[in-house]
């Protein structure tokens, strides 16, 4: 299992789906472990009734159907399916609306979905998802990218309320890939994924949504910066190590 994860870490990030399905066929006995530890680019389905797209993940899945956060119905329709309680559903609806605005402010496009469900500890778990296509043919506002994909998965466990406080545990995963193609730099592609956790005990006075939202915003920002500066920065450093930028090199002219 360690070895399987090791392999996934070394395969090109853009091939993670192929790598995962190859591993699933080699070691099917570990499939549930693998699926829970590995994230793949998010898939999307259209909810025709509400005219909006929603994101698919394990948390809105029951059998082979997926629940739309807009209509709260399963597509394809499913009998005896799992639903959040009506109270949690209210929170879920609000979360979806607000998260959509958050998404618009930071992503200027893209799709978001939030799913919630009760857990065994009298608390609940919420999953906030964002999928953005930043390519020039997608929602890329500046037309810089030939290809651009950002998938964010935020899973936050909220503990039961005790004395006006609650414990929040957020695990965020970002997967991204971008590629530019131009005259001077040719094909330039960066891709990768990163996952971090954040735990906080917060007062519930302003509501769970506020607390969860702030944590997500903070961690997303940190991950974005980390990817940009640390991770991509390291690859840049490597290029300069391989071939340091040259001072003007004296060109030798052919002897006549």
């Amino acid at each position, binding site marked *: 299992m360690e*070895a*399987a994860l*090791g*392999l996934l*870490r*070394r395969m*090109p990030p853009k*091939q993670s789906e*192929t*790598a995962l399905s*190859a591993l699933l*066929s*080699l*070691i*099917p006995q570990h499939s549930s472990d693998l699926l829970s530890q590995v994230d793949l680019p998010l898939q999307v389905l259209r909810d025709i009734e509400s005219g909006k797209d929603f994101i698919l993940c394990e948390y809105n899945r029951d059998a082979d159907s997926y629940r739309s956060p807009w209509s709260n119905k399963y597509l394809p329709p499913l009998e005896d399916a799992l639903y959040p309680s009506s109270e949690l559903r209210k929170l879920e609806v*609000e979360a979806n609306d607000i998260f*959509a605005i958050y998404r618009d*402010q*930071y*992503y200027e496009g893209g799709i978001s979905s939030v799913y919630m469900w009760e857990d065994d500890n009298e608390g609940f778990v919420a999953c906030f998802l964002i999928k*953005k296509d*930043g*390519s020039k043919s997608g929602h890329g506002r500046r037309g*810089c*990218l030939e290809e*651009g*994909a*950002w998938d964010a998965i935020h899973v936050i466990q909220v503990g039961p309320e005790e004395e006006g406080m609650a414990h929040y545990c957020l695990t965020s995963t970002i997967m991204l890939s*971008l590629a530019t193609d131009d005259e*001077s*730099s*040719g*094909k*330039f592609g*960066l*891709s*990768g*994924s*990163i*996952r971090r956790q954040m735990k906080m005990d917060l007062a519930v006075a*302003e509501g769970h*949504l506020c607390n969860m*939202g702030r944590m997500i*915003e903070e961690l997303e920002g940190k991950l974005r910066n980390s*990817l*940009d500066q640390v991770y*991509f920065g*390291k*690859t840049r450093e*490597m290029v300069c*190590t*391989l*071939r340091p*930028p*040259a001072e003007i*090199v004296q*060109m*030798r*002219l*052919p002897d006549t």
Partner: protein
Amino acid sequence: MADEEDELPEETELSYEQKKEIAKWFLLNAPAGEINYVAKDLKAVLSDEEVYNEAAMEAFPVYNKSHMICLEMPSRAGDVIVSSYSEITENEFLDPRTAQVAIVDHVKQICTKVRPAHDEELPSLYIEEYRYALDAEIQRYVSESYPKGISAVNCVKGKDTEGLGSDFEFVVIITAMRLSPQNFCNGSWRSVWNIDFQDESQVLDIKGKLQVGAHYFEEGNVELDAKKDFQDSTIFQSADDCAIAIANIIRHHETEYLAALEVAYSKLPDNTFKDLRRKLPVTRTLFPWQNTLQFSLTREVEKELGLGK
């Protein structure tokens, strides 16, 4: 025996062939310098020595040639570059500089021994004059510009040409690898320049392909994959003059490319990345989560007016 079904039923084991193909896929997709780590993990996952060994025998040569790995030759003769341009047979690679042929074990990635090259494996004196001059110029360039670069010039066409009147073709390879597994960072630079000496037009047609890769994987996993093609030309002159002209052209393009990569990187935080996610909203402040009441009201109003996304 090929498996004809598209979907395997849950309980069916993969066939030998299928396992081997999967194993090969993992090996071939290993980043530069990481094939041995991949091999170790792969063996653990496969737990089938036979499949692994066969997959390795087939995958390693392809990997080695495409990554143009450099193997040290015994008796401190230098390094030989394993590539499709220097290949004599699957396990034999020519080092034109020392006129030796290295016998190579692909899976172990070592040169087991060398032998002198036979006359028919080497170019004619006329060609060698050009090759040698170019090799020297390229070596000079590489030692100036690459801390750990290795180069070779192979004649891939027309090596038996005796004099004017025929075309011939060289391939210049420049490769540099930096492996830092303890720092979770590996990278490689590969340049392949095709120099086509055209007798009739007295022109050298030059085509280059650069490929740079880097992999950083400390608590995460990020890869750079950059490539560019080049085209240039110069006139057919004496061996020494051609060598200088070609080296200058290569130096010029590679330096420019590096500068362009730097520009691409510097545009990332504020431009390119922004198309994926901004650092902050246009308001330049954090999102006002506490105004959820305001949002609820906005939603109510939107619903009333029949608006809403």
